[in-house]
């Protein structure tokens, strides 16, 4: 999240916006956002995780969202999906920006 904050201008430079979603309570989300001074919104898919389930990244055992990335184009079409396996490293921002550029 902090790397997304630091690279936010690189995302907006390619006409992309960042939205973070988790199944935490809205208060927890707000605290996390304030604590890290995030410059993009965090949304709380709380308590049922309907959006998380709709995107196929709901971990039913732990009742949380699996770390994952989605890129949606300007027409609202899902064009990129990456779901991380346990302990798999995060996707670099440069790689995400490259994926956005492919859509332009």
């Amino acid at each position, binding site marked *: 999240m902090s790397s*997304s904050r630091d690279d936010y201008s690189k*995302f907006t430079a390619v*006409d*992309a*916006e*960042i*939205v*973070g*979603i*988790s199944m*935490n*309570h*809205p*208060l*927890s989300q*707000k*605290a*996390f956002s*304030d*604590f890290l001074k995030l410059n993009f*919104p965090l949304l709380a*898919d709380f308590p049922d995780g309907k959006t*998380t389930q709709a*995107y196929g*990244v709901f971990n039913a055992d732990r009742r949380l*969202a*699996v*770390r*994952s*990335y*989605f*890129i*949606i*184009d*300007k027409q*609202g079409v899902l064009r990129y999906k990456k779901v991380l396996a346990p302990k798999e490293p995060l996707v670099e921002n440069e790689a*995400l920006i490259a994926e*956005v550029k492919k*859509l332009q």
Partner: protein
Amino acid sequence: MFLLAAVFSCCGAVNAQTVGKPPIDYTVVPKLQELKDLAPAPDFTLPNPDGRKVSLKDFRGKVVFLNFWATWCESCREEMPSMERLYREFKGKGLEIVAVNIKEKRPDALAFYGKLQLTYPVVLDSEGEVGLLYGAFGLPVTYLIDRKGTLLARLWGPADWYSPAARGLIKSLVEQK
């Protein structure tokens, strides 16, 4: 889950204002942040040192000073004596302190608490779930909650809670109807 959207729309947060109440200046306590969306404090239930379950809603009707702490936290140790003094001055005037120990063994937490001769209520969040809920990413964290259970302000880090400014702030809050 992380969503990177090429199209983004979001609604602005509602910034409700208190109506009919004198404004409270939270900035008198350094780094204390007013929480302007006036959200309700989420309820929780945790055991106290005797094993009795205590819920946040038990304190509805009082101004609640909700503090998260741990024995390893030097800053917590630094501020706790001032919290105790604050508690002794205001506990009969509408203030309650609830100190949530985060992710520690019960004997360790209680030994620390006893050593500092604290009398305000402590509850034990052994799994850290309530700490996560309230964003206790760094300790200490303190929330001020009004008599109706609304979140008023939050501070990450320690404060001198018995300073004239902090006592003045708490006095203003307990005097609000």
